[in-house]
């Protein structure tokens, strides 16, 4: 499937966009590639791009002043990528975005999305729906982080996204779950997936 058709499929599955709006929206993307371990956005920088992932994995992470680093999000195909809050608010990011593998994307700029949102109410509505689902996911994750035991968090992750285990270094997965890397590998050995 052509790259742009992957994007078309992704968008139309999530939201019933068609006709001129859909064509206009598909018009604003450029191909972009990067090697593994490329920093795409730094803390302090305002996210300029929205990415659609065709291949590869990225992570968003936070670095505190106290040697603490937290992986907060993973992104992979077929889905959007970028530092969402910085992109939508056009304020400096608190997070880094980094490729974990070599990646292929389609990407567009805030300026182009913003223009389309100004012209087409349907596109505005689509962005609202997509961000609402992101919000829903984030609140659910907040609950999991606060209420679940390490084992429950581990099981939930593997149930939801089993392929991540092969794709992503375990230290980042442990950080994402807010559990100790040693605990993570113990769980990996003991937890049976049903």
């Amino acid at each position, binding site marked *: 499937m052509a790259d742009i058709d992957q994007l078309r499929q992704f968008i139309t599955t999530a939201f019933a966009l068609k006709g001129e709006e859909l064509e206009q929206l598909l018009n604003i993307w450029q191909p972009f590639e*990067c090697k593994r*371990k*490329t*920093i*795409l*956005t*730094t*803390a*302090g*920088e305002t996210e*300029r791009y929205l990415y659609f992932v065709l291949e590869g994995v990225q992570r968003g992470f936070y*670095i*505190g*002043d*106290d*040697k*603490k680093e937290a992986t907060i999000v993973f992104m992979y195909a077929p889905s959007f990528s970028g530092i969402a809050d910085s992109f939508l608010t056009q304020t400096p990011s608190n997070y*880094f975005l*980094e490729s974990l593998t070599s990646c292929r994307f389609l990407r567009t700029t805030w300026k182009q999305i913003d223009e389309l949102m100004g012209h087409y109410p349907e596109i505005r509505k689509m962005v609202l729906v997509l961000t609402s689902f992101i919000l829903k996911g984030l609140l659910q994750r907040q609950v999991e982080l606060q209420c679940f035991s390490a084992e429950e968090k581990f099981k939930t992750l593997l149930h939801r996204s089993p392929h991540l285990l092969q794709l992503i270094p375990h230290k980042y997965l442990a950080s994402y779950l807010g559990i100790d890397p040693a605990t993570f590998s113990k769980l990996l050995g003991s937890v049976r997936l049903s």
Partner: protein
Amino acid sequence: MPRFPSFRNGRFVLNLLQMKKYNSQALLEQLQADIRQLVLIANKLKSEDPGVLLEQPAPGKWNVVQVLEHLNSYGRYYIPAIEKSLQEIKPATEMFKPGFIGDYFTKMLSPSEKGTVKYKMKAPKDHRPSPHLDHQPVLKTFLEQQQALLELLEKAKTKNIGRIRTPITLSRFIKLKLGDTFRFLIAHEQRHFIQISNTMAQVKKTGTFSLAL
């Protein structure tokens, strides 16, 4: 920066003859990626013990904060100079061909593939920072300058980086192509981040200090 090996050095002359052309956009993207890597490392330095950042690795050698301040001193000159040069109305071209001197400077300063510094140099007087600096403002300035450079690289994507020229610190009579100014400025930063990594290893007595993830 300066005190360059002589032009008579055979390998250098050979290197010079192999001046490669770049796709302008790809070059600017790569330079942005290089800066972002340094921003990540600098953010990690923020959480290091100030004592470590301010410890001289050996007599006569700079501590980490001095290295950063040395870089800041160049930023204070080049960032406004580049800003000014970007006001010129010269639209972007697809390819960028480095200039003779700019390419020479960049190759001089660039770390080797293995991540080691090729040629030792001595900093000019006005770029030798005091060992008694406060680490926080120095790191803050460094990070602000990198964000400014990222912005300037973004702006440069719409400009002709082969036609616009910026004067260098050594002599205002020598002007480099803007593309080369970015290249050598960032090569200079990368060079000193190798020094920072070596310095950290020495003061922490770990043998190696990995600044990468």
